């Protein structure tokens, strides 16, 4: 039994005095050209971030111009001027132009963003594409040379093969090589339109002053939001065996939930129930997840994390693991998939309560910097049209019941196709059919 406030806090959520307020008030302004400006004011912030998020990413690319949205954003958003540091944030569905500055200089950051959005061609024409392409190639190669990130990149590529969502986020050496100014211009023509841009800001500043500064200097074309083709999940596997690597790196996922899915938070809780594990941690023997206690006794895995990643219309739900005991890869995969089965059948109330608590603090912990907050605001508004408050998110997690989790498991995991991505010494990773069969069992 827990002491003190612990138990009370789990049972009587509604009585909480402190949880009654949101993470921070978010202010919204819609400009006449269709662009939304959203600011989250944090009086404790030591610096501020203003960012423009454009809905593009690999979803605006095809295999011959893969990398163009990251390349264009990197060129537009780099350097330093007038107290404003520019950087970029590229993902598969959105590209962020990030301006960081001191709190008192936020108007300047707003103007810098407005200047970039209003006349990107001038910046692109002056840029050295050779240098920018070399930088992007080194970023793309860094992902491929780290086995953990490589496995995740190929997990997406395999799951959404044939769709733009499956393309590598930063392109490939081959695809980046031939990109040029005209490709950037073609991309911006279609995607840099008022309805496809969100300006998000976080820090300690005056929202109205920022909005005024942006409105007075921002000129962006108005056009309909570009339509993004939905991506379809395909059960498949990609094996990149490399016996020169020290370990086996395996990631397996089922189709997850999209950003606006009603089961978005249920799938987050489900991932948190299985959680993370690190064999080389002093508390590894004490963690309570059933899977963790199974694997740590025999050291059949070094490290795993569970994730529930969401894109606009689909997602991936699964794990990423590192295994140095390479003869035990099949055992580990067996135990983890069998444990997933329990989600549909016999998951307990205590496990769901633990998963909910972990999901709540993880959600709050993610929003720990001004850059993380603007990324959350920008991508959520762009991709799902709205962003719920932290308060609402916590309430939704609190409302998740054991029955919801079971129902989600039965609908989304039980006997569903999986995607497998692996590299390193994966001789002991069983064939696709064997692993696919583990997604259900003969007995209930």
């Amino acid at each position, binding site marked *: 039994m827990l002491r003190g406030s612990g138990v009370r806090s789990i049972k009587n959520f509604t009585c909480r005095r402190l949880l009654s307020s949101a993470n921070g008030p978010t202010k919204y302004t819609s400009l006449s050209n269709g662009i939304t400006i959203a600011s989250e004011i944090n009086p404790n912030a030591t610096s501020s971030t203003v960012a423009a998020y454009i809905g593009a990413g690999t979803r605006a690319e095809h295999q011959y111009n893969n990398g163009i949205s990251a390349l264009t954003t990197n060129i537009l958003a780099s350097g330093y001027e007038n107290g404003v540091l520019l950087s970029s944030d590229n993902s598969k569905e959105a590209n962020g132009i990030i301006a960081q500055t*001191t709190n008192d200089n936020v108007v300047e950051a707003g103007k810098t963003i407005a200047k970039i959005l209003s006349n990107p061609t001038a910046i692109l024409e002056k840029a050295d594409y050779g240098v920018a392409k070399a930088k992007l190639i080194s970023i793309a190669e860094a992902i491929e040379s780290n086995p953990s990130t490589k496995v995740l990149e190929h997990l997406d590529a395999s799951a959404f093969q044939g769709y733009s969502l499956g393309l590598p986020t930063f392109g490939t050496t081959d695809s980046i090589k031939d990109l040029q100014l005209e490709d950037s211009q073609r991309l911006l023509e279609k995607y840099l339109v008022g309805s496809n841009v969100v300006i998000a800001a976080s820090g300690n500043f005056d929202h109205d002053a920022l909005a005024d500064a942006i409105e007075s200097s921002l000129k962006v074309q108005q056009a309909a939001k570009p339509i993004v083709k939905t991506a379809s999940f395909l059960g498949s596997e990609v094996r990149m065996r490399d016996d020169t690597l020290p370990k086996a790196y395996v990631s397996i996922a089922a189709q997850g939930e999209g950003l606006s899915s009603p089961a978005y938070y249920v799938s987050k809780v489900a991932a948190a129930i299985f959680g993370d594990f690190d064999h080389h941690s002093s508390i590894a*023997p004490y963690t309570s997840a059933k899977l963790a206690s199974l694997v740590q006794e025999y050291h059949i895995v070094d490290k795993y994390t569970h994730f529930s990643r969401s894109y606009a219309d689909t997602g991936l739900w699964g794990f990423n693991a590192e295994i140095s005991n390479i003869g035990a890869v099949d055992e580990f995969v067996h135990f983890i998939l069998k444990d997933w089965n329990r989600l549909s059948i016999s998951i307990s109330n205590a496990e769901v309560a633990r998963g909910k608590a972990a999901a709540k603090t993880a959600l709050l*912990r993610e929003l720990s910097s001004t850059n993380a907050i603007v990324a959350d605001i920008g991508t959520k508004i762009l991709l799902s049209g709205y962003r719920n408050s932290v308060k609402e998110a916590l309430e939704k997690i609190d409302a998740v019941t054991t029955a919801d989790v079971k129902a989600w498991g039965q609908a989304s995991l039980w006997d569903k196709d999986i995607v497998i991505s692996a590299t390193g010494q994966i001789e002991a990773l069983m064939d696709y059919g064997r692993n696919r069969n583990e997604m259900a069992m003969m007995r209930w």
Partner: protein
Amino acid sequence: MLSRAATRRSYSTAVQAVVKTTARDTTGNLTNLTVVVNNSGSKAGKSGISHLLSSFNFLNTGAKSALRFTRESELLGGQFSSNVTRDAIVLNTSFLKTDLPYYVEALGNVLSNTSFRPHELVENVLPVVKSQYESAIKSNSYLALEELHELSFRKGLGNPLLYDGTNKITLDEIKEFAAQSYTKSNISVFASGAIEEDLVQFINDSSFSYLPSGDASSVAPVTLFKGKEARIRSGGESAVFIGVPIKPTEFAKYEVLSAAIGSSILNSDITAPLYKLAGVDASSSVLKYKDAGLFVISVKGSAAAVSTAAKQLKTIVDSADVKAATKKAELSIALQSTFESPLSFKAEATPVKLGAFNYVAIGEVDALPYADEL
């Protein structure tokens, strides 16, 4: 109520807390509660002992087993960790606001009542410490920085950050080090997302009050050494590191210099001279400790490219335009300032010459220059 309290950053006045406490309330739902144990980082005691002590944190205490604490904490969704820096042992916890009393009590128990069971040293602590050390030394940058600290400070800040197994350290020595370190005068508590009066109340009611008062440890004055050189043969990436040991009063002007030539904090600043060096990854930073600091320039990449780039460093530093970089340095300082260690100095545009420096070459050293060739 909360919006009014939000901007408050207060120091305890009404009821005095038994340890130094800094708290601020926030509008969010998360509390970050951090305990900094000063004078107990890797600079203190036998080499590596603070890493061992830090790894004992959150194991069995007289009040609660590690199993029970881990599982209760999981049920609350909280997270906890203990890290060693050169200055201090830092215990971090983060949890939902309502769980403050639980974690204050837990931290109090860790500091005043850890059991130090013999089997835990062998089964929990040593394997973890070894794995952390082994994963750290895979990085040439880590090795070079360790060497640079040793050259610049010899003892104290020059001690290895992690336990490398060279010294034999017994459980009794760890216990004794804990008794010396975990005292009221060494401990500072920082809470972001907590009401000051509540926090002070909880701290005073917890095992924090059983800590010995201790005396502010008399710290040996730090001596700075310059003009030293080391070369480490190693596989992996080649790199050269230049280090200038500095006094705390010089942090401000070196932050400006760092911003002018290419700070690692402002790493997307493509206008910086270090960024423009061909074929290498080069940046500078000011490592700030309590009694001294280290201004570091690092250049990494292939041995040939590093060798060419390294020879330009002296010119880059000596021709740095510090006047123009003041505003940039202010941003860099703002980005580095945290609640637990706020930076209070202002950027100061004083021209600095590189002068005498310490030098580490690592990787394919056959192809890398010597310090006097720069």
